[in-house]
């Protein structure tokens, strides 16, 4: 690391950009439109979404790191297979750990943890970045992409759980708001859950709205 420090600060402008770009201007989900399948599938509730976000970030960061370290030894003709092997190893590790220490979550997320292997974001970063950059930069790039994916699916999950089940992380938000008002005023206000949000269609709509708002602000146009 000392060599790196001499040539370039650990958080130089360029490196901060590696993390901040995927959060907004180059977001893997909303700009590159990758990883949509899991963004639709796991976002019904916040808790599994959170676990999924952590899992994907972990996999991207460590796959990026390992692949970047071995990048000069990898034969070009089988590099995609090597990438898959590295990613699959980390995904299975995550799956095993969840099965051991968060069985309930592992049951809920079921196949979607395994499907991180096919998440285009992960392989995309390995092929596009880690294969031609130094390990430390690759880790930063992984952190950026992972967080970029995470905040989008968490935002979608907040909308879906709040309007679909009336709760956040299982905490009944609307009941907590309305119950004191009802008992004080004698009214019977309540929130009726919106079934649309529980369906994948709800995720499509929320994702569409996020993309719309983001592109209006940034002025990004598809070429």
């Amino acid at each position: 690391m000392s060599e790196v420090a001499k040539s370039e600060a650990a958080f130089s402008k360029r490196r901060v950009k590696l993390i901040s770009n995927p959060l907004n201007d180059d977001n893997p989900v909303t700009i590159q439109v990758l990883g949509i399948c899991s963004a639709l599938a796991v976002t019904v509730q916040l808790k599994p979404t959170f676990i999924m976000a952590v899992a994907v970030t972990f996999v991207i960061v460590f796959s990026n790191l390992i692949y970047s370290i071995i990048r000069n030894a990898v034969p070009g003709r089988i590099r995609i297979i090597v990438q898959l092997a590295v990613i699959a190893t980390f995904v299975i590790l995550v799956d095993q750990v969840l099965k051991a220490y968060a069985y309930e979550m592992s049951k809920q997320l079921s196949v979607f943890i395994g499907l991180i292997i096919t998440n285009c974001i992960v392989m995309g970063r390995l092929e596009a970045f880690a294969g031609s950059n130094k390990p430390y930069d690759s880790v930063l790039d992984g952190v950026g992409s992972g967080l970029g994916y995470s905040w989008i699916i968490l935002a979608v999950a907040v909308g879906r759980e709040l309007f679909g089940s009336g709760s956040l992380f299982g905490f009944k938000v609307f009941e907590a708001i309305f119950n004191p008002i009802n008992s004080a005023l004698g009214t019977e206000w309540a929130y009726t859950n919106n079934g649309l949000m529980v369906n994948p269609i709800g995720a499509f709509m929320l994702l569409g709205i996020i993309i719309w708002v983001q592109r209006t602000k940034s002025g990004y146009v598809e070429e």
Partner: protein
Amino acid sequence: MQRSNGYIIGFAAILTIVCGGLLAFANQGLKDSQDKAKQLDTRKQILSAVTSVEGIDINKVYSERVTPYVVDASGERDKYKDIDAEGVNTKKEYKKSEVSEKRFPVFEYKGENGELESYIIPVFGKGLWDDVWGYIALEKDMNTIKGVSFGHKGETPGLGARITEPEVQARFIGKKINDGGVMFIKGEGVPANITSADHQVDGLSGATMTTKGVNKMLDSYFGHYQAYFDKKR
């Protein structure tokens, strides 16, 4: 830079060994915790058929209150003394073609005063999309349902998946399984032998196929346990 075929094969082989070794190592290291987590989950499902599992020490309650054993479809129990009832995989048993080959666990549940309170039996079947399963707790009379807990692998959220909701499961409480069994019914097409409300459970609209699967599952498993219950009575 073009590398030789030998290098590529060597690289692939080493990569495979390293990745494979790492995963085998992780699997061995985590196996104990995984088995424990799975067992805890099964026990939770069993107990949730009779009682609320919120905030209780599941393993403690289970080991103090539950006596598991195994029977077969002819009501034989003594032959299977050595089989660990908890280890019986209901799905595997379900798939066996011969009924006489299948083993059926029974979980006797004792109340707080140590008196036998309930018989809990596992059930397994097919819903609309995939497996459905559950645990049915019967009162001491082996006829009245004390509680149920259902699970499913892939029923439609908001429709068939509602069988896991407490409100739906509460509809089974107090129903009688003898003389016709218990089934979800819809407005039309109530079978002639299911006339009494004791055997009818209010169905789920939009989930006809799932409820049919549950009905079939309950019917077959109540049949399988019938011989043992008859003997016991």
